[in-house]
C-alpha cells in the first residue's frame, strides 16, 4: 500500500502554545503532557472536503444575510484574500466559515452580555468558498472592539474569526485576523500568544485600496497559509 504524501508538521514557531499565562483561560485548557508523534496515515491525509456544499446566495454578505430586508449598521468592508499552502499553491474550493462581533462590539450570542446594542440586521456569521485560484471574497461591516474579563480594563481589538479545512484532517485551521492601526493589538494576549513577531504580523489584514469600491466600501486583504505537502514521496515497504 502506498500512503499518499503526508503534510508538513504544524510549525510550532507559528502557532501559539497551548498554555499562555497572559491569556488566563488557556492555562487549564490545554494538554500539559508531551504530544505523541503520529506518523500520518490515510486517517490524517484525508479529511472533509465539502465538495457537495451549496452555499445560499448572500451567505458571503454579512451586511444583508440576516434576511430582514435591511442592512447591518457599521462601516462596510470587503475582505478578499487567497488561501495558499506553504509552497504558495492555491487551495481551491475550500470552505471558509466567518464570525464576528457587530459594529458596536457585541456578538449575537446569549453569553455576550456586553452593554452595547445588538443590531437586528446583523447575525455576524457567513460562509464562502475559495475559487480555483484559492481566492475568496466576502462583504461585512467592520467589527467593534469589546471588553472581556481576562485582566483589568481588557479589550479585544477588532477582529474577525475564520475557520478553514483545507484538503486534509491535518490542514484544519481556526484563526482570527486584525485591522491595521488598531491601538489595542499590542495589548491583546490572544494576539501576543503567537510566539514570533513574523507570526503575529501574519494575523494582520492590510488595507487594500484596489479592493475599496468608490462611494461604497473599504477593502481589506488577508491571505491565509495552510500546511503544505511534504515534497518527498513517502512510501511504505513493498
Amino acid at each position, binding site marked *: 500500500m502506498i500512503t499518499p504524501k503526508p503534510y508538513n508538521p504544524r510549525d510550532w514557531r*507559528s502557532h501559539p502554545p497551548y498554555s499562555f499565562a497572559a491569556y488566563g483561560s488557556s492555562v487549564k485548557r*490545554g494538554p500539559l503532557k508531551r504530544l505523541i508523534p503520529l506518523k500520518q496515515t490515510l486517517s490524517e491525509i484525508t479529511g472533509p472536503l465539502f465538495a457537495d456544499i451549496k452555499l445560499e446566495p448572500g451567505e458571503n454578505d454579512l451586511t444583508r444575510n440576516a434576511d430582514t430586508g435591511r442592512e447591518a449598521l457599521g462601516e462596510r468592508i470587503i475582505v478578499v484574500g487567497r488561501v495558499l499552502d506553504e509552497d504558495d499553491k492555491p487551495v481551491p474550493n475550500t470552505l471558509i466559515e466567518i464570525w464576528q462581533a457587530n459594529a458596536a462590539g457585541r456578538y449575537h450570542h446569549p453569553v455576550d452580555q456586553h452593554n452595547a446594542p445588538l443590531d437586528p440586521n446583523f447575525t455576524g456569521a457567513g460562509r464562502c468558498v475559495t475559487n480555483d485560484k484559492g481566492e475568496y471574497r466576502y462583504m461585512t461591516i467592520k467589527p467593534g472592539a469589546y471588553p472581556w474579563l481576562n485582566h483589568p480594563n481588557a479589550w479585544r481589538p477588532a477582529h474577525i474569526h475564520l475557520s478553514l479545512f483545507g484538503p486534509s484532517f491535518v490542514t484544519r485551521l481556526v484563526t482570527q485576523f486584525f485591522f491595521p492601526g488598531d491601538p489595542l493589538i499590542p495589548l491583546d494576549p*490572544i494576539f501576543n500568544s503567537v510566539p514570533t513577531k513574523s507570526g503575529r504580523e501574519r494575523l494582520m489584514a492590510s488595507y487594500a485600496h484596489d479592493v475599496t469600491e468608490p462611494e461604497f466600501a473599504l477593502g481589506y486583504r488577508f491571505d491565509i497559509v495552510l500546511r503544505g505537502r511534504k515534497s518527498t514521496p513517502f512510501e511504505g515497504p513493498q
Partner: protein
Amino acid sequence: MSKQTPSQTVGPFYAIGLTRQPMNVMATDSTHGERIRVEGQVFDGDGGAIPDVMVEIWQANAYGRYNHPDDKQEKPLDATFSGWGRSGTDANCVYSFETIKPGPVPGSDDSVQAPHINVVIFARGMLVHAYTRLYFDDEAANANDPVLRSVKNKARRKTLIAARGAREGKTVYRFDIRLQGDNETVFFDM
C-alpha cells in the same frame, strides 16, 4: 515558501459561526454499518466539564474507506455518509454524534489500523486545536493497532478507548476527554 498562518482560539462565541445548524447527525437510516451514538464531556484542568468546547470528528465508512480522493482503496463508498461531523455541547456539557462504527483502515508500513474515529477539539481558551483518536473497547484489533502501540505508557492508552453501553435500545460509546490531570487524554502531534 510561505509560513503557516497562526492558529487562534475559537473564543466563547463560536456557536454563531460554527454550530448554528446541528452537524452531529452523520448517519441516515440508509447509511451502511452499525448505528452508534458517541458522546462524552471534555474536562479542564480543574476537572470541570467545559461548556464552550466544540468537537469535530472524521471517520471512514463501515467498509473502512474515507470519502476523499486520496483514499484509493477498492472498497465501497457510501453516498449517504460523508464521514465528518461537528458538535457543540448540550446543557450538561455533553457533545454527541449519531454515526456508524467505521471499518478498519490501512496504517503506515503495511499495517492495519483498528477501527477508530479521528477527533479534534476546539474551545474558548484553546489557542490551538488538539488532535486525538477514539477507539472502541469491544475491538480485539486494538491490541495490534500501531498508533495505540506507539503510546508507550500502557495506562495512557486507555484514555483513547471509548466504552460501549446501551440506552433506550441504542448503542452508545462514552468518550470523555481530559485536557489535563492524572488521566490526561493522549493528544497527538501529526
